[in-house]
């Protein structure tokens, strides 16, 4: 058997698979950000908090109402999306005519408020969320032990990413969306309700964050800060992929997950910064991102 820099192949395959799993989270989260940026031109800094809301939503359903994880997967994202729609209608809408920076400041402030509110009530240590019976246990793949919960994350996020890509790129609704991104006035003139389209898109992007949060609940500690660290990485993913590029954010999400996974084997200390190093390099060479169109 071959060895790569002293790392046996079994270990390498295992780490690659784990990288893909982490990449799934990056992909779903950056997809939501990309959709929102593409249509609204808003850099949604509340995304991390909305991811956290998804995880807490699943926890609350289970603990207050006894609703199982599998129901939560379907119930929580629309609810989180709905909270996003309220935010868009009440606050974010007022900033569309202003510079990006105002949207960023508003959503960042909102994130701080939401996270602070949850910290006050639930503390920072987090809450236990027992995985449902189907997701406990795992399979020995020969090169690694793959817990069912992680296998499910990959499958679920691939389905969601592909469905989103399909809707936006291949359906009539998606065509309206893309057209509205290009020229909202013209699309409005054709009798399409652009403001509604924008609101629903924001809601959808936020629902994706909520979905990622539900996926995370049985794996990571459910705590108010869970989105804060992740969101910075996800922003880097979106920048590398190209702001607003749907396919770009999906591919970059999975790809960077892989690269981060490899870094954890060869130089674990650097795994927290590798994505930002790549971001800097990409920005130097291709300022619009790997899949972005330069304006």
């Amino acid at each position, binding site marked *: 058997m071959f060895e790569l820099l002293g790392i*046996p192949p*079994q*270990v390498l395959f*295992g*780490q690659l698979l*784990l*990288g893909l*799993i*982490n990449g799934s989270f990056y992909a779903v989260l950056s997809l939501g950000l990309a959709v929102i940026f593409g249509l609204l031109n808003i850099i949604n800094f509340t995304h991390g908090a909305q991811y956290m809301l998804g995880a807490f939503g699943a926890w609350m359903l289970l603990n207050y109402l006894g609703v199982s994880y599998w129901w939560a997967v379907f119930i929580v994202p629309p609810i989180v999306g709905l909270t996003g729609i309220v935010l868009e209608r009440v606050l974010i809408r007022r900033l569309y005519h202003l510079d990006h920076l105002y949207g960023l400041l508003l959503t960042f402030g909102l994130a701080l408020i939401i996270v602070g509110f949850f*910290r006050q009530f639930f*503390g*920072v*240590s*987090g*809450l*236990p969320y*027992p*995985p449902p019976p189907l997701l406990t*246990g*795992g399979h020995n793949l020969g090169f*690694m*032990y793959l*817990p069912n*919960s*992680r296998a499910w994350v990959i499958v679920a996020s691939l389905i969601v990413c592909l469905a989103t890509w399909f809707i936006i790129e291949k359906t009539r609704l998606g065509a309206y969306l893309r057209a509205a991104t290009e020229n909202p006035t013209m699309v409005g003139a054709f009798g399409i309700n652009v403001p509604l389209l924008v609101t629903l898109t924001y809601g959808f992007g936020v629902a994706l964050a909520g979905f990622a949060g539900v996926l995370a609940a049985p*794996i*990571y*500690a459910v*705590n108010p*800060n*869970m989105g804060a*660290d*992740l969101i910075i990485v996800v922003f880097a993913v979106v920048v590398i992929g190209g702001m607003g590029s749907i396919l770009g954010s999906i591919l970059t999400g999975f790809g960077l997950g892989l690269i981060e*996974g490899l870094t*954890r*084997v060869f130089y*674990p*200390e650097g*795994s*927290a910064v590798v994505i930002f190093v790549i971001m800097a390099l990409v920005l130097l060479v291709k300022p619009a991102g790997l899949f972005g169109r330069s304006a």
Partner: protein
Amino acid sequence: MKATGFILASLASLLSAGAAYATDVKIGVLNDRSGIYADIAGEGSVIAAQMAAEDFKATDKGINVSIVSADHQNKPDVGSNIARQWYDTENVDVIADVPTSSVALAVNEITKEKNKIFLASGPASSDLTGKACSPNTVHWTYDTWALANGTGSAMVAQGGDTWFFVTADYAFGHALERDTSAVVEASGGKVLGAVRHPFPGQDFSSFLLQAQGSGAKVVGLANAGGDTINAVKQASEFGITQGGQSLAALLMFINDVHALSLEVAQGLVLTGAFYWDKNDQTREFSARFQERNSGQKPSMIEAGVYASVLHYLKAVEAVGDKDAAKVMAKMKEMPTDDPLFGKGTIRADGRKLHEMYLFRVKKPDQSKGAWDYFETVATIPADKAFRPLADGGCPLVK
């Protein structure tokens, strides 16, 4: 900087003027109030300091205690700035708590330079009473040597003689890994490897997979707070213990067990300095504390803040002055005695000595409810619990 003032000195004490003298003492509780260590210290430590001043009846004894607090965000630069500002412009006499060893080592230096007092309850690094020891610091609750000595030797005695560490990549993690490796090797065990994870971390799967691949009998988690919670949760997901390896959470707090649930945490062996359900006095204090700290029982760090502030106030009363050198001398000369840690002493290098305990996390069916989490496996006497004075390399005792 978030600094909230809390003034205990009441108008009544000013009017009564019964005491012959009045000493104004200002205590700054510096810790993580929003990040991964906020539940094991945070506001709870401020409440503990307030309770110490109240229980001591400081005002009646002519000591006006005021308590301020701030968030160091686990960043040494932020912590240093706050400490300097407190000492230089806000007349703070004592800084208490300071979890996160990297911040604590910085505050330790500043406190020495400004000739004030540092009552360290939160930090773990044994360097605070070793090569970085200071005449102005008391390290109260625990340290990495004591944790390693408790959990490390217990695990090796149970047959866990090969180790792999998953270590938080900063001063604390390094110290804990170093001290535990020394204990493992001294007990005839072997360290097969270690991986350093970024601090704070969220996903530990690749590090756990490396630990699994190492074939070591024991996977030692040299991290704390939210990192430990995530790592233990994911270790259970990846079947580390089902695969025949044991997990050693080298620093674990009762709040971590609460967040993990007994289903996930059961059977873990850990070393601690305090458990709320130890005796009537600890239960009485913990019930009062829980009421004020939104239902959370005290962690050993919060207990340490209470006890160290109490001892400091006793020394101020005995000296009748708050001069740092005199008060420190008094604190080291007077034996300590408080409801939470019992009787103890403070050594020349600043190390507070008391019993340490080896706990095992109960199974869900052994627990009577929330916070009934630990059973005591062994009590380590004070003279065995901490690193011998001569081995620390503290320049003060040469």
